[in-house]
């Protein structure tokens, strides 16, 4: 078994102007997904990220606050799951609730270092 990170990109609820009812509906789907993964014992952790960005770039360590790219490219959060391979994670990611809002899931394997 390996660890994978599912990175959620785009679909910023704030910017999309979702109504309270829609937000509740979305949240219900996220919770159901989380519970499903929890019950299967594959969810190891994860966080949601605040959309405010600070970047430090270059040898001068220039600090800037953005806005950088399109909000479609902003990472909104991540989950870490355990699975056999990336294809299995693709299956897990079928339940990500925000594809219809233009959201993207990026799957990355967590590197394991030899001892």
């Amino acid at each position, binding site marked *: 078994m390996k660890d994978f990170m599912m990175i959620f990109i785009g679909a910023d609820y704030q910017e999309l*102007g979702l109504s*309270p009812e*829609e937000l509740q509906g979305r949240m219900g789907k996220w919770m159901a997904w989380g519970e499903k993964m929890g019950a299967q014992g594959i969810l190891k952790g994860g966080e949601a990220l605040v959309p405010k960005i600070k970047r430090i770039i270059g040898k001068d360590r220039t600090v800037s606050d953005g806005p950088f790219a399109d909000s479609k490219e902003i990472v909104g959060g991540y989950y870490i799951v355990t699975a056999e391979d990336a294809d299995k994670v693709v299956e897990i990611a079928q339940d990500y609730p925000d594809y219809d809002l233009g959201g993207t899931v990026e799957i990355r394997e967590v590197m394991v270092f030899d001892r």
Partner: protein
Amino acid sequence: MEKKIVDHLFRHHYGKMVAILTRFFGLSYIETIEDAVQDTFIKATLQWRKQLPDNPEAWLTKVAKNRTIDLLRSIKAEKNRIERINSGPSSIALNELFLDYEIEDSQLRMIFVACHPSLKPQEQIAFALKTISGFSTKEIAAALLIKEDTIAKRLQRARKTIVKNNIQFDFPPPHAIQERLHRVMEVVYLTFNEGFHSTNNAELIREDLCGEAIRLCKLLIKKEEFRSGSLYALFALLCFHASRLKSKTNESNEIVGIREQDRSQWHFPLIDIANSAMNKSMEYEDLSIYHYEAAIAFEHVKAKTFEETNWKSILKWYTKLYELQPTSFTSLNIAIVNLQLNELNTVKKVLENLKIKDLGQRQYLYFGSYAEYYLKRGEKALAQSFYEKAISKTSNSLEREYLRKKLAQLKS
């Protein structure tokens, strides 16, 4: 984890929080308040994903209170109130606003603000749906079949008018209450109708609109000084109609006419509630269109089968209704009832004197009635052409399907 969040919790909480905060800060901050409350839900959506709080409602209330203090900080003019809010009488005052009774009181004040005569009627409905009922601009647009831009403009105008006229977040003075209530009831009634007769095909929005109208009506009834025969009659009317809401569409989301509706599916507890509200309404002296409309709705739910419908009584109530409200829509209904009674000459006469334009989005019903009239006369070709006309006039896909089916039956 078996914790479940109550349906519509966010939407209902939105209206509550906006009302409480407005009571505290005043109407001039309404836009800031609405934004702040919206933020609370976004926060909840992200945070609750990970772990649902033991008491979601209490969590929302707590965050709303904190938001209140944040707001105070961000509003410069209110700066010195911060000190007072963390301790002293102000903090007690703020906490008290979160008591159930006060929440309801704040929401009622908001209803009266929404129906303030300085707002245009179309602005009133949009404002009420947004600020009291927590619909987004997009949802209001979908519910009222109006462009999102237009709704946004109406909301903007309403907020501007409220600030410009310095409207207070308060009830009207006692002598003006009944008159203003009149408009409040109209707004509730229109909201319900948008849901019930809506030419909208999104079923969810229809149910939500009806539910909201009933909730607001209940809120009004709780307050003794607002009660009247009209208010109880309106409540009865909404409940009678709502009892049939589920059976108005079938599993494949097609409209089911009252003739074909599965009457065992009607929601009888609601009919009971409606009946007792109807009895209550008789204890007052005032009489309104709601009384007659409720009486008509009652006749429909009373009949065990479509054939048992007492059309004569219904016609009597429609005639009374017409005396109070001589609109083309009432006339159209009179024609439809006469169709059932096979009074074909009367049908023709009534239809001929109708102003079609007044019927707006419901013109298809007029053409549909003509179609049935010709069908009964045995003039199939004319019936067919009127069904076609009716089909072309409806924007509702469910209604269209229903009419198409009738047309197909006619052709076969």
